[in-house]
């Protein structure tokens, strides 16, 4: 009775909460139907490009989207959904309403999308621009064309950064420092998934580099890798977002940690933190574009036109002005210049720079496509022990 005047407060809050959710759904639906409606008619000026957000999307905006819009008048809508790209594309495909035109995906996801029939197959020599000297795209990209649906864009690497002020006079020079608690006490951050960690563990447990995947294919090899990781398990902070390690390093929470090299570049050069790179045994990975399967002819042509423009030699080299990821074309490498804002030479910060790439791994896509689920189950069970 006494409370009556204020009772509705609660109801309003709960209702408000639901309404917020509902509104989100409605907005998305509205947007989806709006795009669908436009798709039928005059959509000549718009396309939706999906990427990862943050500094990476910004580099694409500067290097690809803005010049492309200027040239063709097409408005590019950005959607930072690549992290859920595979699942969302599958859902869109099942709903029969694909609202994305071009999607940025890591190579492993691109392979999965290709296998699932969710991405369009690409013929590099007819759909991608040749190098300025006339080398066909298939040769210019070379081995980096790891899937029939994948258009490589950058080479990035997962590698370690360490706090220069926490390692004393003995900065780590090789990967096994990660497993060396005696000389490098303190926490380290590793990604909360088996990929890369298992390879590093085996490498530091005496397995030769060429044998790593053969060993990892056996249950004994998997146990061996987990046992090696077990030696540092209590000192590991596990990350799941690329921004975690840079933050942990900046806070001094960990002494070293793995992440993408571009993130470390920004900690070191842009934020000037006392952090240095440990390039040893960095794992190369690829990121690039896919075009969703099942687009209307008109949208497909526009997507292809964008791809043709955005993955040519100059454009790929331009992206390196904004972020320290290596261009995927061989012909782009000599064109890499200086950072657009910092004015420093970008070449020495590229994972592909000869000085940095003395000892590297290439993400073994086929192996992980097969073993990911199996080893991930083991890895998660091991983590939970």
């Amino acid at each position, binding site marked *: *009775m*006494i*409370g*009556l005047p*204020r*009772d509705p*407060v*609660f*109801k309003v*809050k*709960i209702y408000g909460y639901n309404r917020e959710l509902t509104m989100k*759904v409605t907005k998305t*639906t509205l947007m989806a139907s709006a795009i669908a409606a436009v798709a039928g008619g005059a959509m000549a000026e718009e396309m939706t490009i999906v990427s990862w957000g943050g500094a990476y999307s910004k580099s694409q905006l500067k290097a690809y989207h803005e010049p492309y819009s200027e040239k063709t008048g097409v408005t590019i809508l950005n959607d930072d959904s690549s*992290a*859920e790209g*595979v*699942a969302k594309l*599958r859902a869109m495909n099942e709903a029969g309403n694909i609202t994305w035109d071009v999607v940025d995906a890591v190579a492993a996801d691109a392979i*999965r999308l*290709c*296998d*699932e*029939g969710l991405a369009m197959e690409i013929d590099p020599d007819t759909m991608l621009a040749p190098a300025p000297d006339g080398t066909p795209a298939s040769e210019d990209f070379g081995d980096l064309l790891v899937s029939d649906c994948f258009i490589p864009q950058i080479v990035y690497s997962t590698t370690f950064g360490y706090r220069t002020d926490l390692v004393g006079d003995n900065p780590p020079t090789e990967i096994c420092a990660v497993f060396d608690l005696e000389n490098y006490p303190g*926490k380290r951050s590793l990604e*909360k998934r088996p990929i890369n960690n298992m390879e590093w563990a085996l490498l530091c447990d005496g397995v030769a580099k060429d044998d790593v995947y053969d060993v990892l294919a056996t249950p004994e090899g998997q*146990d061996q890798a987990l046992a090696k990781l077990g030696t540092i398990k209590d000192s590991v*902070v*596990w990350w*799941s977002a690329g921004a975690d390690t840079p933050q942990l390093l900046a*806070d*001094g*929470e960990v002494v070293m940690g793995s992440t993408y090299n571009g993130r470390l570049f920004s900690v070191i050069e842009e934020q000037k933190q006392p952090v240095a790179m440990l390039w040893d045994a960095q794992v190369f990975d690829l990121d690039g574009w896919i075009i969703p399967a099942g687009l209307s002819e008109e949208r497909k042509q526009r997507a292809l036109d964008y791809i043709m423009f955005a993955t040519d030699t100059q454009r790929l080299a331009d992206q390196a002005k904004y972020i320290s990821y290596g261009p995927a074309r061989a012909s782009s490498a000599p064109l890499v210049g200086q950072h657009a804002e910092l004015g420093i030479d970008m070449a020495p910060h590229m994972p592909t720079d000869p000085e940095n790439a003395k000892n590297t791994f290439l993400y073994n896509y*086929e192996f992980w*496509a*097969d*073993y*990911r*689920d*199996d080893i*991930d*189950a*083991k890895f*998660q*069970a*091991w*983590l*939970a022990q």
Partner: protein
Amino acid sequence: MTDATQSGPMLAADGTPLKKSLARSLRRRKLRALALISPLLLFVLLSFVIPIVSMLFRSVENGIVSQTIPLTVVELQNWDAEGGELPNEAVYAAFTKDMLAAIEAKQHTRLGSRLNYEKTGMSSMFRRSGRQIKKLDPEADAPFKDKLIEIHDGWGDVDTWRTIKTHAVPITNGYFLNAVDMRRTPEGAQAQPDDKKILIKLFGRTLMMSLIITGSCVLLAYPISYLLANLPMRISNLLMILVLLPFWTSLLVRTSAWKVMLQQQGVINETLVWLGLVADDARLVIINNQFGTIIAMTHILLPFMILPMYSVMQTIPPTYTRAAKSMGATNWTTFWRIYFPQSIPGIGAGSILVFILAIGYYITPEIVGGTKGVFISNRIAYHISSSLNWGLAAALGTILLVVVLVLYWAYDKIVGIDNVKLG
């Protein structure tokens, strides 16, 4: 009633029997009510019920094998999986024919991904073999057995065919078995190897920690709600805003703020070290474990407990406690015998809200949970977005839903759902 038969049915003004006319107007009113809510009903049905049901159905749906390689599945019926021998040429011929059609439709790699959940290596086997099989002719190139084995030695492995035969059923219990750390084999359901058992453990942990979080929410929220309900309006309004303020802040921001607070170089540890309560080299580990998850989630879910408690406590007339005291009850007796029983509906409502929200959380445990503080929802999220094993994700989700419904039923039996009030 006999009167009615004698004098005829009572008539309305227009001459129809009153009963009929009443029923008609009632029906019309019901229809109008239905028409009024029908947009909402339709919306809920389309945007909520149908997607959920179709998602749950994925946990048993397994048409992909028999749709992609129908002839092979029929031929495999005649093959003895227990015998330890490879299937005969008829199976290989049927398989080649099926694969040629599947490659044409770009379905074969999809089947490979599906079977890879059951047997590691199937994914690349289908992908790689597809490129070679494409070149075969279903008539001229027979027999196929040796050719296929030459293309990939996996086709000469009895296990491959056993796996295909085992998972050829259109409706499978395989995903549900996987969801409880078992698997479907030709010999029936078997337990997963020990080093892959994790899901049951996660279910248990999710329930346990959700209970702890609910419990700590009750303990923290009760005094606050009491205070809010009994202070003068002006002050309690101010306090209410303090309760609601974090409620309006983004979940991610609040979770990340806890990270800054709790990490080893964080605010709490720094303060303790500065005060000399904790040695610099023995800083407390209060994040990236279960403790971190409990703290962060209790904080995030607290308003959901305070609000129903508060609105129930508002309705408890102070006259009752005054009456009890005037009859000689101590403060404690008054609280325990008079006030507390009347506030139970608020605790019930808050607990249900918090528990059900907690059981499905995954962002907060992912960020602050480390390895021991993650929930089953984190695995569901993994299977939805990374491994694309939606069947398993759906099975896990179904189990979670059933668990919640069972707990709700038990709650109804023990406490009584009528005893729950949101205000």
